[in-house]
């Protein structure tokens, strides 16, 4: 009896609460309570949200910094969010929260290309502009994608690099992130395509290992590679955790010069190994620029300067003019070629990101 | 006379809602064995816990050798030379016997505080030898029998060089022979200068050991007498507050046709070749030493354990019982030995406990029916005379005897033919004991077949129509009520071959 009563009371409470909500709301104009910078326009500032994959990731922090800089240059309000775990489920929840806040634009780096589609569709239906950056969501769930670098270029350049390091022949291996990381898998596909070229007939890709972006796993996977393939001459690690872990293993085992390492890594994480020569050079784009470009693209979408169609052009602040180009069945904006970090320039970048 | 080893004056202890002790006095003389008696719930356990520092009294004073003392925690008590052997053995089953003996006062090397295992094992061996036990002190406590664990508890008290030893129903779980051993040890302790408080429900314990007896009733102090000054009946009146006319109210029941027949039942390592029959209206006693396999046989019939050989026949039909539910459906009920662990859901109301076995029958196709449940719970708890205000009182708040009555009530819910009662009066006070005996007798008169497992000889002789005796997993003898004697039963329970047994079998 008590339970039923308690249940009924709880329900009544809920209902009355909801009924209270239905009462006339405070005027929506005075909802803006905090203002941080001087407003350029008389009406409320436009709100631009950026959702990164997960929190506590310096790469993402830099992207968010870039995004914020761009939006503030343009006089909007930037909302930066990141879930504590890199899951699509958490991002869906954040998208719902942003829809409820009536933001004008959502930019995000997707934790899953397809799983966010229903949520992002809902956002677009609510009149919110949606674009992805860095890690793309599928063409149906976005208006445009900001691509940090051409995956084909990344894949091919890395193979070219490692082949140059090992002197044109020998066994190489790839140490990737998780087995389902979309970015890495695309790059690995392009690496394999590049390797089909007859000029690489002496180069053999022996294994793709997955370190799951975990330090301990990446280390034991690297060690396993070295032991299973004693003749291994080069490792490509297109992931920041993986390349640093591999660098550490090669350093500890004194394999500098015997096994070459390249890939994609954060300059701050890799400075040690690039300076020591364990990893002669590696690539990455500037995450700050990725965020910055995303910010400008978002603003252009909201202002209606672009709609995400091929051929749209807009000004991207310090990055100059950018154009929307085709990408499969969607469209994208390309940041540029990956940037090469080597012993000469690593010193100036290691403290930046 | 002022020189009491331990004296308690005007002790009162109140728990929320209950006065557990109300202005209680107690005086312990040097070198005496002092029996403390009272029904369950009379406040004996709380009283002990005050002496051992587990609880603090709300009012009253404690004197040790005439000095006012305060015992704030068990450690204090230990330092003052007070040790207790509790009713439910408080051991550490995962630790060795040695550790159980020395826990809290391990021998350590001076300076480094390293535990001196070798010395402790030796000392433990010495203590055990002194108590006539010959098991290895390195054995895990959990591997010992209850009686052996009791001996370890005593060794523990000895090891602290305690001057005051409290024994809380040490004989409750022991057989006659083991009790004799305990008497011997207790007297030895007294002769070595210890003063002993001995708590028991058994009159024979008191007569055998104690010089004086103190009685509590309903949390109050009733009086202290020399054992020879007070008659058995007067003592019962003091404890119960009324006269109990008949301790074993066995009524004459008509014994009818065969109800249950067990043939050649066997389970490797537990029991072998068990055969007996039970007829309508009959009370069959199953006795023997603890660990002889009595409980296992009955649990196998009830479907808790499985048996590997033999068969069970109910009313001439062979039955397969793989689960207690099957047994209950067939009409076999079992009252477990350990009411707190096996009999009751302590956190639950009395009513719910009583109706648990038949909840399905009381329901409307699986939906609970509160009305029917309370009706049955009320009727049955009145029938077995549970002392409680309402059926919504929690079982944990009842005294041991009343808890046992609730378990008996549980048994009466189902439509049974055969009832197996495993030590139904163990650790139960005199009043509740006679109530349970009365119910048992009534049941037999109504045509039920009753199997009673018991280690208490007077109970077996007083209540049973026939008595089967088990020893080491086999039935060694069966007696008719008319021919059974205590000596014959003991003989069958121990037989020849065991030197110790011979010595103990008076």
């Amino acid at each position, binding site marked *: 009896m008590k339970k039923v009563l308690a249940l009924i009371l709880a329900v009544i409470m809920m209902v009355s609460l909801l009924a209270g909500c239905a009462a006339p709301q405070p005027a929506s104009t005075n909802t803006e309570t905090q203002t941080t910078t001087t407003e350029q326009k008389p009406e409320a500032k436009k709100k631009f949200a950026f959702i990164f994959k*997960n*929190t*506590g*990731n*310096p790469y993402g*922090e830099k992207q968010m910094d870039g995004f914020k800089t761009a939006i503030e240059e343009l006089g909007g309000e930037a909302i930066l969010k990141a879930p*504590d775990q890199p899951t699509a489920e958490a991002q869906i929840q954040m998208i719902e929260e942003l829809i409820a806040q009536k933001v004008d634009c959502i930019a995000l780096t997707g934790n899953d290309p397809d799983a966010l589609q229903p949520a992002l569709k809902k956002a677009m239906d609510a009149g919110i502009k949606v674009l992805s950056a860095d890690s793309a969501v599928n063409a149906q769930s976005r208006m445009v994608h900001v691509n940090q670098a051409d995956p084909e270029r990344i894949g091919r350049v890395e193979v070219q690099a490692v082949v140059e390091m090992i002197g044109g022949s020998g066994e190489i291996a790839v140490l990737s992130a998780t*087995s389902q990381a979309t970015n890495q898998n695309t790059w690995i596909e392009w690496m394999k395509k590049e390797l089909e070229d007859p000029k690489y007939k002496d180069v053999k890709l022996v*294994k793709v*290992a997955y370190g799951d972006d975990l*330090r*301990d796993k990446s*280390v*034991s*996977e690297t*060690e396993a590679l070295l*032991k*299973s393939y*004693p003749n291994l001459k080069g490792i490509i690690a297109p992931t920041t*955790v993986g390349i*640093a*872990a591999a*660098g*550490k293993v090669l350093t*500890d085992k004194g394999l500098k010069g015997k096994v070459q390492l390249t890939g994609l890594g*954060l300059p*701050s*994480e*890799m*400075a*040690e*190994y690039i300076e020591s020569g364990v990893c002669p050079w590696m690539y990455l784009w500037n995450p700050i620029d990725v965020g910055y470009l995303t910010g400008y693209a978002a603003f252009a979408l909201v202002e209606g300067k672009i709609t995400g169609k091929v051929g749209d052009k807009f000004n991207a602040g310090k990055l100059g003019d950018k154009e929307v180009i085709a990408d499969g069945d969607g469209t994208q904006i390309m940041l540029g070629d990956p940037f090469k970090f080597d012993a000469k320039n690593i010193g100036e970048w*290691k403290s930046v990101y | 006379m002022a020189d009491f080893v331990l004296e308690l004056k005007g002790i009162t202890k109140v728990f929320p809602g209950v006065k557990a002790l109300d202005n209680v006095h107690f005086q312990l003389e040097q070198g005496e064995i002092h029996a403390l008696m009272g029904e369950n719930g009379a406040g004996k356990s709380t009283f002990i816990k005050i002496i*051992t520092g587990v609880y603090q009294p709300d009012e009253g004073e404690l004197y040790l050798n005439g000095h006012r003392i305060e015992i704030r925690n*068990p450690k204090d008590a230990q330092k003052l030379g007070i040790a*207790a052997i509790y009713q439910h053995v*408080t*051991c*550490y*089953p*995962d*630790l060795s016997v040695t550790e159980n003996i020395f*826990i*809290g006062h*391990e021998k350590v090397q001076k300076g480094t505080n*390293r*535990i001196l295992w070798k010395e402790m094992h030796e000392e433990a061996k010495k203590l055990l030898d002194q108590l006539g036990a010959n*098991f*290895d002190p390195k*054995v*895990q406590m959990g*591997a010992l*029998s209850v009686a*052996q664990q009791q001996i370890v508890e005593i060794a523990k008290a000895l090891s602290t060089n305690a001057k005051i030893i409290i024994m809380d129903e040490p004989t409750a779980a022991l057989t006659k022979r083991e009790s004799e051993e305990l008497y011997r040890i207790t007297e030895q302790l007294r002769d070595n200068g210890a003063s002993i408080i001995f708590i028991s429900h058994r009159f024979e314990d008191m007569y055998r050991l104690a010089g004086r007896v103190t009685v509590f009733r309903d949390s109050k102090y009733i009086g202290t007498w020399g054992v020879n000054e007070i008659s058995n009946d007067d003592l019962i009146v003091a404890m119960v507050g009324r006269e109990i006319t008949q301790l074993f109210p066995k009524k004459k029941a008509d014994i009818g046709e065969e109800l249950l027949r067990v043939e050649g039942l066997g389970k*490797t*390592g*537990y*029991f072998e070749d068990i055969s007996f029959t039970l007829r309508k209206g009959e009370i069959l006693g199953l006795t023997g030493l603890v660990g002889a396999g009595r409980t296992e046989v009955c649990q196998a019939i009830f479907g808790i354990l499985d048996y590997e050989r033999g068969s069970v026949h109910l009313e001439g039909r062979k039955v397969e019982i793989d689960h207690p539910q099957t047994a209950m459906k067939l009409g076999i009920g079992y009252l477990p030995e350990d009411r707190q662990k096996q009999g009751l859901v302590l956190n639950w109301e009395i009513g719910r406990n009583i109706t648990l076995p038949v909840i399905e029958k009381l329901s409307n196709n699986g939906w609970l029916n509160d009305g029917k449940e309370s009706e049955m719970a009320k009727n049955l708890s009145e029938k077995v005379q549970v002392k409680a205000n309402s059926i919504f009182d929690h079982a944990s708040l009842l005294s041991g005897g009343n808890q046992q009555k609730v378990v008996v009530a549980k048994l009466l819910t189902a439509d049974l033919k055969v009832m197996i009662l495993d030590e139904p009066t163990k650790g139960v006070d005199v009043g509740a004991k006679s109530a349970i005996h009365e119910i048992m007798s009534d049941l037999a008169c109504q045509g039920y077949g009753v199997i009673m497992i018991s280690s208490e000889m007077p109970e077996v002789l007083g209540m049973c129509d026939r008595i089967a005796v088990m020893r*080491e997993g086999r039935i060694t003898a069966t007696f008719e009520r008319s021919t059974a004697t205590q000596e014959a039963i003991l003989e069958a329970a121990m037989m020849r071959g065991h030197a*110790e047994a011979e010595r103990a079998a008076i």
Partner: protein
Amino acid sequence: MAEKVLNKSFNSINIAKFRELGLLGFILLLSIMVQLRNSSFMTLENIDDMITNTAILSILSVGMMLVIVTRGIDLSIGATLALSGMISALTVKANPDLHPLFAILLGTLIGMACGALIGLVIAKTGVPPIIATLGMMNVFRGLTFMISGGKWVSAHQMSVSFKGIATSSIFGINTLIFIAIVIYVVFYYFINHTRTGRQIYAVGSNPESAKISGINNEKILCLVYTIMGALAGLAGVLWVSKFASAQGDTAMGFELNVIAACVLGGVNIAGGSGKISGIVLGALLLGILNNALPLINVSPFWQMAIQGGIILIAVITNALVKRSVDRNNLIWRKI
């Protein structure tokens, strides 16, 4: 009667031994099978790698064993590890001249503080360990992210001496392994030869009696979680030094590996029993699996299922073996 008891005790000692022998046998069998597939498994170098990688796991298992012995569980150790690792890495970054011993001390102290907090909550307020540590796991993880401001501490920001903790060696043994062995020895002595150590087992075996025996249960609980925290803190420093990187999400989910190592090592989840030798073997088995599966080229997609399967088979075999030993005992019992 006495004869029976002796017999029984004899067997119960046997079972405990058998558990570890069984586990050892399983490890050997697995090693041989792996060796047949990949001959580089049994090389000195690989064994050294494997044990080094297992050192941190086994250090944590020691603490977790004590917690489980008291009928508790600690889900917060991954977070504690990350927090202390992050704080000590940040300290080292700010003061490159800091002696590595000081960093180790700092990390251990931070972990100890975290553990003590958990211990206090559990002992004083009666919050069940699983809840208290689940809550604290969130709190410590959140704090790690906040303190680091989302940034990592990278290899070049750490002093050589700090990174050297994990790579250097003492008496020819890798420092990590050395520290782990020191911890085994210290804790073996602690739990077998000191009063406090035995009291931990007493509390786990029967908390009610422990109270009556005058053991301060609350103190013991606090102590156990503080030890667990301290070991997690120490492991945090070692982790950061070994991988030369401190991240906010360091060791996320690592607590499950540690619990699995304890379970494999025969620590009874219901409390009261558990041995150092058992958990060392348990941790080793997990270490071998982590090391061997990539070596024998098992598809990464199969690795997880295989690991889970082996854990399940190991615990089930253990249970079955124990049953048949028990049954044998019964047959020998004279009736």
